[in-house]
């Protein structure tokens, strides 16, 4: 399982990357995609939607089931990765490249944990 050191993580298996300009990029982790199995739809939110840390902001459909994706931080969605509409399997192939949304006005980082803490969490769950 892949965990990148420069990202932050949540208990619900999302990742966040803080960009130099103060915005953030959000996706789901390699562990999450592996647990979900083959992903066939990503139901993305809309640009300008507000997301609230800890609340569901979109969902992912695998062959097996639908799973909620929770906002790791609060903020306003400034971009969604439309490539995922046509190629949802990109999440299985590269969970950290296949971002879901880019977020501005970022606040409430309480839920985030370091890569090290996330590895420990996943080892416990796995």
């Amino acid at each position, binding site marked *: 399982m892949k965990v990148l050191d420069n990202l932050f993580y949540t208990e619900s298996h999302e990742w966040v990357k803080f960009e130099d300009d103060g915005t953030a990029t959000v996706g789901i982790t390699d562990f999450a995609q592996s647990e979900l*199995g*083959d992903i*066939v*739809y990503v*139901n993305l939110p809309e640009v300008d939607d507000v997301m609230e840390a800890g609340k569901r902001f979109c*969902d992912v*459909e695998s*062959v*097996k*089931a*639908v799973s909620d994706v929770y906002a790791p931080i609060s903020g306003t969605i400034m971009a969604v990765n439309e490539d995922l*509409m046509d190629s949802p399997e990109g999440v*299985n192939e590269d969970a950290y490249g296949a971002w879901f949304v880019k977020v501005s006005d970022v606040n409430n980082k309480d839920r985030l944990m370091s890569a090290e803490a996330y590895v420990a969490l996943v080892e416990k769950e796995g």
Partner: protein
Amino acid sequence: MELKTPLYDMHVQANGKIVPFAGYLLPIQYPTGIITEHQLVRTSVGMFDVSHMGELVLEGKDATENLRYLIAGEINDLVPGQIRYALMCYKNGTVVDDLLIYKMSDTKYFLVVNASNKDKDAKWISEHLFEGVTLSDVSDSFGQIALQGPQSQKVLEQICSDFPQKYYTFKEKVDVSGVECLVSRTGYTGEDGFEIYCDADKIDIIWKALIDLKVPPCGLGARDTLRLEAGMPLYGHEISDEITPLEANLKMFVKLDKEAFIGKDALTLPRARKRIALKMVDRGIAREGCDVYVGEEKVGFVCSGTHSPTCNMAIATALVHVDTPIESEFLIDVRGRKIKAEKTPFPFVKKAK
């Protein structure tokens, strides 16, 4: 506590993702993934551990008549070596279980039932036994592998010289990799294939032989997408103790010209609902239990729904009011969002030639 099939260690070794299913710990998929496993079975070959299935033996002078009373279908024309799919109904016409009936002789039948219903079935049959007919549950002594896909025969030929040629027939006491087996030409994928039964403590020999022949193991996930594409019912979804065979479009397994059988009276009445096949027009997957609408009116619910790897779209079966016009634009409530769906013919995918 969940039981382990005799092949449990094989699944763990192969990194199968183990989940509880029908009281057993079984792999939902291997690292290959559901879509790849599914496609391998459609285009080539794959195998499934189906040791969890229940096996019952009905035996006695009047076993045939007893079985004819228990099931909605007909077996009078079966000869030893033939198999028939059948539905066992309650008095109100809803379904106790669906099963495969293997005719061993005029006085002995091998019944293969759903794992989750096995105890219920055994009790039900025992309560309706004719004098001199006995029922035994031999499930624990059998392991079972389903070898499925257009290349099944090519694979099986390498470890077995005497296998059944015709669909829905079987052979007993057949040598497969040195193990005495019962082999039937049956399956639950809509493809050609075999189901191989043998002593529970020897089934791993066959599994390993098939692994050596590069047959990929496949999990419950692919088993479900394959059977749904093939339009095959699954107990608890398309049929249940709340759904009759007529509602599930399984009328061909209900023989009303047969003398008394359990459920006959109820099954002579017209059905209130019908099963339809739907494909999603909008993005999203309708799952089991989602409500189905035509306009504002709720007309039914989804029995099974998934992503079809072969059609590369979301498909579903639904039970709707019998008078619902089939050309309707259907709307399915998927977690509060209404997505469009339209009727499509059964099965979603036809067998490869």
